[in-house]
């Protein structure tokens, strides 16, 4: 199994951290992982994206020419990266911010109103967590328990009190994966 995920959005939406959580969770399951951020000119324009590969075998190139999953946290990211999704792949979008629908019939598209849900929960950084809940439920990329453990591993202790709330919102995200 080799699984590639492209996460993209604005700087500050937690795109790079979300990618790190995926990689950490998969690593805890004994999988091979790579995480590659965009740090080039697009970063200077306020957008952020990262590529994550999760695999049962050693990973060759960390650079994605095509992805199994695109997680788009804003409209420009959906426009730019839809073409990179493999046929049969999956696109998750924060539908509170992304109003377009990808013009492809050969992929699965799941819109999740992540920002609105995060706003209601009182913490905007939860938006990415909601989408990761949906990702975990829709794919075999990583399990819920590993994700919870990854949060404890990756977040500084002063944020640990937020983790039960994050897991609750993660579970809400998972409900959107139902066909």
């Amino acid at each position, binding site marked *: 199994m080799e699984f590639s995920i492209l996460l993209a959005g604005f700087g500050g939406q937690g795109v790079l951290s979300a990618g*790190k959580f995926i990689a*950490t969770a998969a690593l805890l399951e004994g999988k091979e992982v790579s995480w590659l951020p965009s*740090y*080039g000119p697009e970063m200077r324009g306020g957008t952020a994206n990262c590529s994550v590969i999760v695999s049962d075998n050693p990973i*060759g*190139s*960390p650079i994605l020419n095509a992805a199994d999953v695109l997680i788009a946290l804003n409209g420009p990211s959906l426009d730019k990266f839809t073409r990179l999704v493999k046929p049969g792949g999956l696109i998750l979008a924060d539908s509170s911010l992304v109003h377009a629908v990808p013009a492809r019939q050969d992929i699965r598209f799941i819109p999740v109103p992540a920002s609105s849900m995060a706003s209601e929960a009182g913490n905007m950084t939860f938006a990415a967590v909601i989408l990761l809940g949906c990702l975990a439920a829709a794919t075999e990329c990583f399990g819920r328990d590993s994700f919870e453990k990854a949060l404890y591993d990756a977040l500084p202790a002063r944020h640990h009190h937020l983790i039960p709330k994050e897991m609750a919102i993660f579970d809400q995200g998972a409900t959107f994966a139902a066909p």
Partner: protein
Amino acid sequence: MSNRVLMKGNEAIAEAAIRAGCRHYFGYPITPQTEIMHYMALRMPEVDGVMVQAESEVAAINMVYGAAAAGARVMTTSSSPGISLKQEGFSYIAGAELPAVVVNIVRAGPGLGGILPAQGDYFQATKGGGHGDYRNVVLAPASVQELYELTVEAFNIADRYRVLTMILGDGTLGQMMEPVLFRDEEPVETCEKSWATTGTRGRREHNTIQSIYIEADALERLNNTLQAKYRLIAQREVRAETVNCEGAEIILTAFGTCSRICKNVIRQAAQIGIKVGLVRPITLWPFPDRAVAAAAAQPSVKALLDIELNAGQMVEDVRLAVNGIRPVHFYGRTGGNLPTQQEILDQIQVLARS
């Protein structure tokens, strides 16, 4: 796998240096390697080490010269334009026979260029860069695990031969995160530095560290010493990885990030019935001539294809190693672009058909 830690390449370099006993770091920030400095700022005080953000790259390399002369394990890191500024210092360090470790997380050039990954500094790293007849040992890691292991080894090589040892990475390797498995104990070699300027305390003659020799014969003696040392390094320190080379039709040569793309291409090519091998130099200097020549000499080989993030630099060393027995082709991208697997596969298909 149990204790693997997810880390950025740049952080792995910094942690490796500390584990190798480096307690003196001098640098000046530049993308895409500034995380090394961040990490050093955090960690050096914990191990009673020194991290100085110098006023410039030139100052940083001269601080390295001073610390190395005093016998310290010392490192500086930068990216391409900053490494250009340090070249005078490299030459002086070679002339004074000092051990030091330098990391170049290469970005696209020439000039101020861009901040994206490239391998355009191969010539500069392996052929000198500064003035005079000297060599730096150049190591080319291809994963975060290898950035860690080769950084530790770079300190050992530097001390063993009293040479500057360079880690030549690129923006992708510096910025990416991968799991790293740290060893419980590092293979740190300690050596007597009786030549170091540590203060005589009245017990011995003064040691002198210098690179100036006005008399021709004295300077020629230094040059002969250096060349003898470089010959020894070329005998003992050559490293390369070969993948799938036995009976291959096409042999790829690539280092660092490019070699990883090539490993994917090998699998893709096998699916369409073309057997492709890879020789990945781990030491760029000394260059693994024999590994390249041995792979090329097989009767099955039609051609070699060198892949780099530049306009064709290592390919010259590949051609010298192959010495005309097989055609050597080149494909590269510049400006911070990376070749896709498909681009490389297209080149392979043309060569395999001819």
